[in-house]
């Protein structure tokens, strides 16, 4: 064939030329990718590899007026395990100890944990549930357990962290505190969510292998701003009293639900609010904010409004005699009855109020306003009770006062029915606000739930007293109705809660409800008032819905005692200077202290007798004498290891058994 070098070289040059062309094609392609499709690919790169991560801002806390936590966010930890990722050696070495440690912390037997972990390992379950809702401290401890201390990859420990909202004081004001989550925005949490939530921050992260993300720069792109703290007006002590007083009564009367609100007379600050409803299990828990939301026919508690209007208009006077006849009066074939069978006969207008005579009240209002019902309605509206309060808590119910111009909803029965609290509708808080205005000498203040919004160091906003109506009626009228309300407790419908030492004023209400239903009439029992009667400090409303009729349903029986208990407890447990009330208790307390003081100051030469002393007193007493004390148990001293009177050297150990 005679291969010539020339031929080889020629072909080589051609080949080289082709390779150079190929190189040109490559460069062309490079340029095409970078310049023609460059933006597409670059944005794809960003989409695939750069992501903005949200950094959750810490939610603010909700505090009581005295700084106790009502709601705060804390981290909870759920624990799972991947037993497969643990090596055989580590597994066999640590499984026993791990099971024991788990058993100690979580309660179930060590065998249970060992079994379930071994089973998961055999069944290749890589997501074995261990426990949930561990606190941070428990989680720190759990991390140190055998096997788990090897970490996620070698120890199979899987931790899932959640932030949950906790209410450290439990269910007491849960409904008023409310929530702001998937369920919606409710209560203080819901209303002040803008302050509480804060602003989430942002951080750009870049994807790296294994599905991990690393931050691109040292700082967050947007720093998160933590939520503000909300200081409520709630007083933990009063809240505690109100909650348990209500709960006890609800249970006693097997009622459907109930609410209690305690308000500071001068400022309108809500010191306690409790809403409890019966659950399916028959227990009570905070279900809805009845005090704010539930607008219902108030019944007899509304008689105060009617009485005030009538007195203001001077159509009657307290001493005017009203004939309540025999306790029954008919309107358009419908009857108004007094709860007291047979009626009260001829009594004064004030007495009508004290005994809560329906007939009497209907007569007072109907006789004087039936020709001009508008005048009565205007009288009511003048006192600012026809409008919502504009609360800082969401979901306030609408007050309803019928209007005589509205012919569809007004008939001959409207006025007489209204006189004793039917055909109108108010929320418990609206009723309370009116009573509070009377207690506050006519100045109607808005119920206040929030004192202050603050960051950890700075106050952002403070909320001052808000006046709705500086004077709802004349002082003369106020003085009159105040006396009437005081007499309600002294000798009227709420006689049963009267106490010599302590003055209260208020009005009972026993309102029929569900009277339109076939299931039969049920009752709403209420009591609203203020205390002390002569210098009101707090006003309070108690409303209990649908108590068991067999046990009782009158306002003075069902709701009255709750009011009484709250009033008393507040006065015996909060340091208000009211000597008359505290006299007895102070005396006994002083006596005790004197005895102790004497004991402490005696220069003992021998072992003193500490039996029946409280441990709290006995231990410092003995320690001051130079003994070393070893106390067992809690409470009062039952036994002392060295007999009283025997001589003991300093430094001797004395064992006290307390119980």
């Amino acid at each position: 064939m005679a291969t010539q070098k020339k031929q080889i070289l020629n072909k080589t040059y051609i080949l080289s030329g082709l390779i150079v062309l190929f190189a040109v094609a490559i460069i062309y392609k490079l340029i095409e990718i970078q310049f023609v499709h460059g933006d597409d690919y670059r944005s794809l790169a960003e989409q695939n590899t750069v992501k903005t991560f949200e950094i959750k801002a810490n939610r603010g806390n909700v505090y009581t007026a005295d700084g106790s936590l009502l709601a705060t966010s804390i981290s909870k930890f759920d624990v799972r395990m991947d037993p497969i990722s643990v090596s055989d050696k580590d597994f066999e070495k640590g499984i026993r100890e791990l099971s024991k440690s788990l058993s100690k912390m979580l309660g179930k037997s060590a065998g249970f944990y060992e079994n379930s972990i071994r089973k998961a390992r055999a069944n290749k379950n890589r997501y074995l549930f261990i426990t949930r809702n561990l606190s941070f401290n428990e989680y720190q401890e759990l991390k140190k357990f055998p096997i788990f201390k090897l970490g996620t990859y070698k120890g199979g420990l899987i931790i899932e962290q959640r932030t949950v909202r906790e209410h450290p004081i439990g269910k007491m004001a849960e409904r008023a505190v409310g929530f702001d989550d998937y369920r919606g925005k409710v209560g203080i949490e819901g209303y002040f969510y803008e302050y509480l939530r804060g602003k989430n921050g942002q951080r750009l992260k870049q994807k790296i292998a294994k599905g991990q993300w690393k931050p691109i720069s040292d700082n967050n792109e947007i720093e998160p701003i933590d939520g503000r703290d909300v200081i409520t007006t709630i007083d933990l002590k009063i809240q505690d009293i109100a909650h348990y007083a209500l709960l006890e009564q609800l249970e006693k009367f097997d009622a459907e639900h109930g609410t209690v609100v305690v308000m500071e007379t001068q400022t309108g600050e809500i010191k306690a609010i409790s809403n409890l409803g019966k659950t399916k299990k028959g227990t009570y828990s905070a279900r809805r904010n009845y005090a704010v939301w539930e607008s219902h026919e108030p019944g007899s508690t509304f008689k105060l409004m009617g009485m005030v209007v009538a007195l203001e208009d001077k159509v009657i006077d307290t001493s005017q005699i009203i004939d309540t006849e025999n306790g029954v009066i008919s309107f358009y074939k419908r009857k108004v009855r007094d709860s007291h069978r047979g009626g009260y006969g001829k009594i004064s207008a004030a007495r009508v109020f004290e005994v809560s005579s329906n007939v009497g009240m209907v007569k007072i209002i109907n006789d004087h306003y039936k020709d001009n019902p508008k005048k009565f309605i205007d009288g009511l509206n003048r006192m600012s009770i026809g409008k919502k309060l504009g609360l800082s808590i969401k979901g306030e119910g609408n007050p309803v006062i019928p209007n005589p111009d509205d012919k569809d909803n007004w008939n001959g029965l409207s006025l007489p029915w209204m006189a004793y609290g039917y055909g109108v509708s108010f929320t418990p808080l609206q009723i309370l606000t009116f009573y509070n205005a009377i207690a506050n000498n006519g100045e109607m203040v808005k119920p206040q739930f929030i004192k202050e919004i603050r960051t950890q160091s700075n106050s952002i906003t403070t909320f001052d007293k808000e006046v709705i109506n500086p004077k709802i009626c004349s002082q003369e009228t106020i003085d009159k109705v105040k006396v009437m309300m005081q007499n309600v407790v002294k000798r009227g419908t709420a006689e049963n809660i009267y106490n010599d030492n302590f003055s209260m004023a208020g009005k009972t209400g026993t309102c029929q409800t569900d009277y339109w239903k076939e299931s039969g009439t049920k009752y709403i029992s209420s009591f609203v008032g203020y205390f002390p009667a002569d210098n009101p400090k707090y006003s309070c409303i108690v409303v209990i819905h649908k108590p068991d009729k067999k046990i009782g349903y009158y306002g003075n029986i069902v709701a009255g005692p709750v009011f009484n208990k709250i009033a008393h407890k507040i006065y015996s447990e909060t340091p208000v200077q009211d000597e008359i009330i505290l006299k007895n208790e102070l005396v006994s307390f002083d006596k005790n202290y004197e005895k102790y003081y004497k004991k402490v100051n005696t220069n003992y030469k021998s072992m003193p007798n500490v039996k029946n002393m409280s441990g709290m007193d006995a231990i410092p007493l003995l320690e001051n004498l130079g003994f070393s004390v070893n106390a067992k148990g809690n409470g009062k001293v039952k036994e002392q290891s060295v007999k009283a009177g025997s001589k003991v050297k300093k430094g001797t150990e004395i064992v006290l058994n307390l119980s």
Partner: protein
Amino acid sequence: MKQLLANIKGDKTIWAIIAVLAIFSFLPVYSSSTNLVYVTGKGTTFGYLIKHAILILLGFVIVYATHKIPYKYFSGLSVLLMPVVVLLLIFTMTQGTVISGANASRWIQIPFVGMGFQTSTLAVVVVMMFVARYLARNRDKQIIFKESILYLWLPVAIILMLILPANFSTTAIAFVMVMLLVFLGGYPIKYIMYILGMAVLVFAIFLLTAKAFPDVIKNTRIQTWSSRIENFSSGESENNYQAEKAKIAIASGEINGKGPGKSVQKNFLPQSSSDFIYAIIVEEFGLIGAILIVLLYLGLLFRIVIITTKTDTIFGTLLALGVGIPIIFQAFINIAVAVGLFPVTGQPLPLISTGGTSIWMTCFAIGVVLSISVANKEKVKESNEDIELENPLDILHEAVG
């Protein structure tokens, strides 16, 4: 050092190019090792750097040693190495390495060192030398087809068939290289057509048997090959994950690049230190770096062509082309894969990618080319073509003597 430099002979430009490539290779290799360490959780980035340094150093020892051997000996060496390569390939096939369920036995362990060695890479170089030898020996004769079947194609076919099951792309490229070389070497075009036809036939039979009797030829990577080619032609994005990531890397590099070590796509590109290293280079060093690399390989090609031009012997010419051109081809195929001109093949980028075998065999080939250039410079006309030894065993005598 001076003495070492004095001992370096042959084409200085080639020395310079391979030195630049080798030194440059540390940057992308080090950069992409971060991801490798993170994903596997084994070793350290510094460890990878040291390993690469050792491989490169050994590579240069190979270049140096090879270029000292007068190129005439490679003729006989190729014949001697053919049976060795066959044995090694058979041994490799028994290793049973598996890539995602398919047979991918490409590696044997080098005893004591603990490194893998890809026998097919060695086989390709040996086959090229063998073909060059055959063509040079028959330069004056009328080639008889049947004879060439026996003395040329049968040994070549045996080796290629042994590589085929585990590594289709290497086989295909090797086959193309051989065909190119025989074309350059004056093998009649008519016969080339016959061989092409036969090769297609053999490959078709192989495919059919593999599909018809999956039990007979177990675990072949036929599935992988066909899906790769299908994906390339249909452009399905789901299966073209790597190709897309490579393009994203190239596009993000822009003109100046992100700077050494700052590649993002290395985290998502499998084989970022080998098959897709070019994409990483473009991302980190930009269009400028990309074109420079292409120019370096073109420079290498240019020098190889110069050497072939200057060589007096046909064997020298064909040997230089036979071992030199595949380096350039491999480089451009690797780059073509990265830019999306070629389906994903898994060819390393010569002298830059990690991987001992690739570096060493490239160095060996460069050494051979340099050896030819040494002969050119010294103008030692070893009494012309007859020097090409008739008896391959003579090489042993010479080596001993």
